[in-house]
């Protein structure tokens, strides 16, 4: 094989290979950087809390100055929103139609109680760990998701002023609550536990199945229209959403829409940059292929003679195949190294601006880089083999 390499390395143009190497490196780096940056920066915009995903908006009716008029949605109105082109899915908030009070204490001694209410959205809109997010009829346990702001109000307002202990999310999740449901004619005591917190939904959430059961049980006949709707939208920047909301005098969370827009732009930008990177990678792939084809062309006589003295096409192809694989591997390694350095720099910048952002991993870049490496190498190997076989 050494002799074959000695023969075939002639005519290899270092300049061409360098050209390929740099072009491929640039392409690979851009692709990987775009993906990695997108994955790293996305949490800044989306502030994913795991409860409600990003491209959802919550629609409510605008409350008039004196609180007159209805605040709920009729069936027709809901159907109309459902039919809008921007709507992917729609779910209604169902409110509890009975009285709820809740007390919590440690070791069975209730020392904190409050009147409250429950709301539910279809489970599909809850994409937190759903293993705990279920209620079975007859059970006396109900999982609850609280808005994160409620905890802040307690910790920084209430507890501070009364020298009560501040509570972390973990601690709250461990507290046993006693929930008292009271209808017109009966009441029921159950255990409750906070299983998650949300930044997005400004309400106390319980599973929809629980809501259906409890409303039937404690407020039969009181079938109220929903006051809030949650809508999954394909594209939160869609002009038609804003227009529709305005026309019908509805209200949505503007902030939410802004975050959605930013995420969308981030997606588009990353997509464009990745596209450019892929294009450069594709072009560099062609440079390499042309370079190899030229080499094979220049060495046709040698190839032919090697095949004639008994070398197989696979043996004759091997040196150039190894050459491309080594080059591709080198490109991947250096691109990942450069990405690592660049990522350190921008992550430091991100941490300075958003201290809570997670460190994340470079796994997406590893995976994508590996896939590109494999794809390009397999194509190279096949093309070289094909070209050499033609000499036979």
């Amino acid at each position, binding site marked *: 094989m050494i002799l074959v390499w000695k023969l075939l390395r002639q005519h290899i143009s270092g300049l061409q290979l360098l050209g390929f190497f740099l072009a491929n490196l640039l392409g690979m780096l851009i692709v990987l950087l775009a993906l990695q940056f997108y994955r790293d920066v996305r949490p800044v915009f989306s502030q994913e809390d795991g409860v409600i995903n990003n491209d959802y908006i919550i629609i409510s009716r605008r409350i008039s100055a004196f609180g007159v008029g209805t605040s709920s949605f009729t069936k027709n109105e809901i159907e109309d929103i459902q039919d809008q082109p921007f709507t992917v899915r729609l779910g209604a908030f169902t409110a509890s139609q009975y009285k709820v009070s809740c007390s919590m204490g440690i070791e069975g001694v209730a020392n904190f109680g409050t009147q409250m209410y429950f709301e539910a959205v279809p489970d599909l809109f809850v994409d937190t760990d759903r293993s705990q997010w279920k209620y079975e009829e007859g059970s006396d346990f109900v999982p609850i998701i609280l808005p994160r702001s409620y905890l802040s109000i307690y910790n920084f307002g209430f507890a501070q002023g009364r020298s009560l202990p501040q509570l972390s999310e973990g601690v709250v999740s461990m507290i046993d609550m006693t929930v008292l449901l009271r209808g017109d004619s009966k009441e029921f005591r159950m255990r409750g536990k906070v299983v998650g917190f949300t930044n997005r939904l400004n309400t106390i959430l319980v599973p929809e199945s629980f809501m259906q059961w409890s409303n039937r049980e404690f407020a039969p006949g009181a079938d109220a229209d929903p006051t809030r709707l949650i809508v999954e939208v394909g594209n939160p920047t869609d002009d038609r959403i804003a227009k529709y909301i305005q026309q019908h005098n509805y209200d949505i969370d503007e902030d939410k829409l802004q975050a959605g827009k930013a995420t969308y732009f981030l997606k588009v930008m990353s997509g464009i940059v990745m596209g450019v990177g892929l294009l450069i990678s594709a072009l560099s792939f062609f440079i390499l292929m042309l370079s190899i084809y030229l080499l094979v062309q220049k060495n046709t006589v040698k190839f032919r003679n090697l095949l004639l003295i008994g070398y*197989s096409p696979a043996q004759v192809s091997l040196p150039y195949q190894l050459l491309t694989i080594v080059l591709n591997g080198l490109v991947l390694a250096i691109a990942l190294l450069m990405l690592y350095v660049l990522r350190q720099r921008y992550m430091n910048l991100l941490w300075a601006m958003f201290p809570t952002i997670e460190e994340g991993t470079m796994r997406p870049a590893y995976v994508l880089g590996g896939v590109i490496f494999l794809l390009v190498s397999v194509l190279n190997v096949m093309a070289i083999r094909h070209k050499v076989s033609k000499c*036979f």
Partner: protein
Amino acid sequence: MDSIRLEHTFPEVFAKRSDLQSDVWQQDVTFERGKLYLVEADSGTGKSSLCSFIYGYRQDYQGIITFDGQNIRNFKTRDWTRLRRNNLSLMWQELRLFPELTAMENVMIKNRLTGFKRRKQILEWFDALGISDKVDTKVGIMSYGQQQRVALMRALAQPIDFLFVDEPISHLDDGNARQMADVMMEEATRQGAGVVVTSIGKHVDMNYDKILHL
């Protein structure tokens, strides 16, 4: 492989010729293992074509060529690679050496593939052929006669059932031609191989089993 048979074979370029007078073309000819043949030819009668058809790198012939009864038109690349390593050897008229490699490397590039001869044996050939001082000389700067001897050694560095040598001594004096014939026949006899020598006139006197006029 014990026999190579040509049944009514002739090059396609001769298809229109009606005056074909040949012991080989358009005849039924069998080359048998262990025998020595001389194919004499005038230039342009398809001597090198015959070698290329049998060696499997040209198919522009009519008729049938078989190895032990198997039509070689059906052979795949893999079959030819195997045959060229283990059964069939050809010393080309145009030699097909690699000028950028040394004489030894040119022999070794074949021998590494077959693992057939030891370096010492190859050095003995160099000695016997009178070019032991050229072992590490690049083939590109050797004389044609010297190159012919390198090409012969390369052709011998493998298991052989049939050896075709296409005008092996065209550039050699009688003394060197004799030495070359001796080395060739020693190896061929040792392996029990069939040898087919082609010539356009100049040839070494050997005990040919059959002389064919192309």
